């Protein structure tokens, strides 16, 4: 495992410098974020490039900021920083739940939110958590236009996103609801903190202690990548949150509407079982977290 020859290495300090470096390389360049996926692909010669543009010193792409009712997370914010910023994430704690359990300490010290979203591996934690949180993705197109894309439109399938050749993901942002709201993410993998065999992320916004105003449920571990469980969401939105049976019904609905496929370790029926169990647990956690904001 060794990368093919790389002619140039650039480490820009600003987004503008990064774009200039990309343009100067004549389209044979790649941006590298934390490199936790890209380096593997380069070492196994799945990918190669003439110029590598390292975004690690672009400070404007780093950080978690909660202001004017918007929560922004820069693309180069590392998992470790996302986990440490749990309090600042407000209702979007599912992102910290995900970041805290990616890989191992060494990976969390390097890997980034933007890297994970751009790579959009078929089973990964950040994309599904961002999907449940209803993120908006900020993109700098290769021609210099800035664009915002909803996460639902951004994630287009395994390893496919709304990013075109040379586009740069700048970060994600979410509107912070005025009322009580929270989220949770949990996964089951074949070893601790592994890529999810199944992962479920739930976001809820409460109208009152016993009623939802809004709910988003996203599941990962499906053959087509992360997906919303729309029927389960609809059921949760109209559920009485004091009724434990209503949560169980939502979880059952999510398992029923998500089509699973067996892999060498886990059968399809067991994955459906995992969806149901994790969904039940995450609805409970998200609702409990949101309720704790009610005075």
């Amino acid at each position, binding site marked *: 495992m060794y990368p093919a020859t790389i002619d140039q*290495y650039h480490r820009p300090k600003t987004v503008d410098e990064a774009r200039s470096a990309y343009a100067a390389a004549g389209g044979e360049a790649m941006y590298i974020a934390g490199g936790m996926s890209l380096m593997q692909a380069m070492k196994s010669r799945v990918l190669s490039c003439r110029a590598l543009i390292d975004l690690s010193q672009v400070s404007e792409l780093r950080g978690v900021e909660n202001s004017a009712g918007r929560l922004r997370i820069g693309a180069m914010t590392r998992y470790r920083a996302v986990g440490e910023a749990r309090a600042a994430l407000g209702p979007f704690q599912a992102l910290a739940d995900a970041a805290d359990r990616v890989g191992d300490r060494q990976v969390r010290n390097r890997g980034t939110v933007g890297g994970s979203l751009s790579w959009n591996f078929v089973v990964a934690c950040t994309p599904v958590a961002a999907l449940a949180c209803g993120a908006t993705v900020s993109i700098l197109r290769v021609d210099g236009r800035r664009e915002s894309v909803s996460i639902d439109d951004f994630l287009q399938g395994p390893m496919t996103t709304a990013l075109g050749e040379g586009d740069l993901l700048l970060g994600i942002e979410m509107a912070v609801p005025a009322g009580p709201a929270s989220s949770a993410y949990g996964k089951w993998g074949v070893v601790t903190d592994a890529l999810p065999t199944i992962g479920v992320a739930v976001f809820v916004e409460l109208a009152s202690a016993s009623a939802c105003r809004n709910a988003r449920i996203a599941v990962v571990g499906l053959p087509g990548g992360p997906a919303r469980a729309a029927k389960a969401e609809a059921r949760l939105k109209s559920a009485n949150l004091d009724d434990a049976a209503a949560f169980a019904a939502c979880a059952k609905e999510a398992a029923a509407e998500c089509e699973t496929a067996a892999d060498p370790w886990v059968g399809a029926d067991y994955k459906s079982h995992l969806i149901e169990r994790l969904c039940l647990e995450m609805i409970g956690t998200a609702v409990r977290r949101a309720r704790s904001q009610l005075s």
Partner: protein
Amino acid sequence: MTREISVTVNGTVHRKSVPVRLLLVDFIRDVLELTGTHQACTYEGVCGACTVQLNGEAVKSCMMLAVQADGQQVTTIEGLAKDGALHPLQKAFKEHHGLQCGFCTSGMIMNAEEFLRVNPRPTEEEIRHALIGNICRCTGYQGIVAAVSAAAEEMSAAGTPARSGS
């Protein structure tokens, strides 16, 4: 193809001309000849034996290029003992049978050293969780967990300060 880099490793500045594609682990082992950092999984990023600290944070050195460490501080296992006196973690690994073949040990210790600065009084579960990225094929981990726990106690009791530069 090649690029001049300046990397501070264990406090010493090294200026070298290296191929852009050279992995940091190979820079440390083959160029600087600091062979305490090991490579156990053929650069797949799964074993953790090549763990070093980049600006004080544990990273797998097969997962990045040497050029990415340009201008940065790297600490390897050779940088831990001071004036021939073992670091409390090194001493504890020795005393608590935290190693048999020793191949994973430097990575274990470089990860654990940063972990104990973040969490100086960890529970056993927290120690086990912190070491997920480091694979040991000999010990069954009992001695390793005992060693990290003992080092944490010793360092907390002694008020061992965080190393400079980290």
